[in-house]
């Protein structure tokens, strides 16, 4: 085996690291626009899914333009913040702030029959990683029109079921206000929701922690909207 001097070793590693870093930086820059596009399309698909519109990555952008007709950013008092783009609000960052300081994105969709839905983005912590989703309300800002949940790494077959239709379907028609004034959110009940209860859905057997996290996520993310909802419902 050849002997290499210390100087050679240092120069060799520096040059190698420099070349590798340069290559990776170029690759990352070139691929960034494609990656950002994918993330944007996925977000649009998720928003559409919460108002029960299924889309493919190909048609998502067009459908989004067609159905999502308006969006606002609200403050905790329920006032609209001017010149803010709801689509680019980073929920993770907002949730790190105290509730009164958060900026609250709200999307409005218009269906073919002219009805409007109000879509609230959600984000929380699951068992293994983040969970997120969108929940849409009818114009009374109380009745759930549709939901869409997703997760990063919940247990397949257990917590990961929050993504599935059977779990999301029962949310439709539930209400978040008791007697139209008291905020109660929607509870995910272990062992099954009481039949006919307007604020409860079934939890996932074996996915208790994820179910509980989902309930907490709904609560934390919807509470700040209360003022706006009570003021603007029809």
């Amino acid at each position: 085996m050849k002997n290499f001097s210390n100087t050679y070793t240092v120069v060799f590693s520096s040059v190698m690291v420099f070349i590798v870093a340069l290559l990776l930086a170029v690759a990352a820059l070139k691929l960034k626009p494609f990656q950002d596009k994918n993330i944007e399309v996925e977000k649009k698909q998720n928003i559409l899914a919460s108002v029960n519109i299924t889309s493919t990555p190909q048609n998502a952008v067009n459908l989004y333009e067609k159905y999502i007709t308006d969006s606002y950013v609200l403050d905790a008092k329920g006032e609209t913040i001017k010149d803010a783009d709801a689509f680019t609000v980073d929920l993770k960052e907002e949730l790190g702030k105290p509730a009164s300081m958060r900026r609250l994105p709200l999307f409005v969709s218009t269906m073919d029959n002219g009805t409007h839905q109000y879509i609230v983005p959600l984000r929380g912590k699951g068992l293994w990683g983040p969970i997120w989703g969108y929940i849409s309300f009818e114009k009374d800002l109380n009745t759930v029109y549709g939901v869409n949940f997703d997760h990063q790494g919940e247990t397949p077959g257990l917590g990961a079921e929050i993504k599935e239709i059977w779990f999301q379907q029962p949310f439709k028609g539930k209400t978040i206000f008791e007697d139209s004034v008291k905020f109660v959110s929607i509870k995910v009940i272990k062992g099954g929701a009481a039949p006919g209860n307007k604020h409860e859905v079934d939890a996932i057997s074996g996915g208790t922690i994820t179910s509980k996290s989902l309930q907490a996520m709904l609560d934390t993310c919807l509470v700040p909207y209360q003022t706006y909802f009570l003021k603007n419902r029809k």
Partner: protein
Amino acid sequence: MSMFSSKNFKLFTSPFNLQNPITVQVLGICSALAVTVKLKPALVMGISVTVVTAFSNLIISYMREYIPPRIRIIVQLVIVAALVILVDQILRAFVYDVSKQLSVYVGLIITNCIIMGRLEAYAMANKPWPSFIDGLGNGFGYAMILAIIATVRELLGSGTLLGHKVIPESFYAGGYMNNGMMIMPPMALILVGLIIWFQRSRNKELIEK
């Protein structure tokens, strides 16, 4: 030595059976358990690992005369890591849904023992072209096992193949159910065990005394 000599051919095919990285050398088991619930991510993972082993073997083999032995493992790691990051970025840009399913496992290709194993055992001591072939062969050997396991798991666990329904609705109506066990990682380990058992019963030379 010609580029497609019988020696090179043997180099390419031996990882398929007698030198299989997963079932004989028992390397790269962790990802074999993690990404084989569905066939599509398993295939993408197989291709990604093949690309990384082949090209890291090629690059390291070209550099082998110039790498100071004292830092050779670090040099290998830098090359492997750079290739893995490239693969990850490309997947994210062009097959976003698959890259989401594979999540951290693409990054973990870096720690796949097959790659470091081939670099140390082969590329550091052989010419670039045979090293490249060796990398390809081992990558395919790995991909093959992943594909077999993923086919069984997706078919029995979800009733689909590559996302298409394979098991007809009439089966479900007749009381057939998807096997939830197949989705869990232990089933992958049991399937690997079955493949090893089958392979050894066919090849007596693999059985230890």
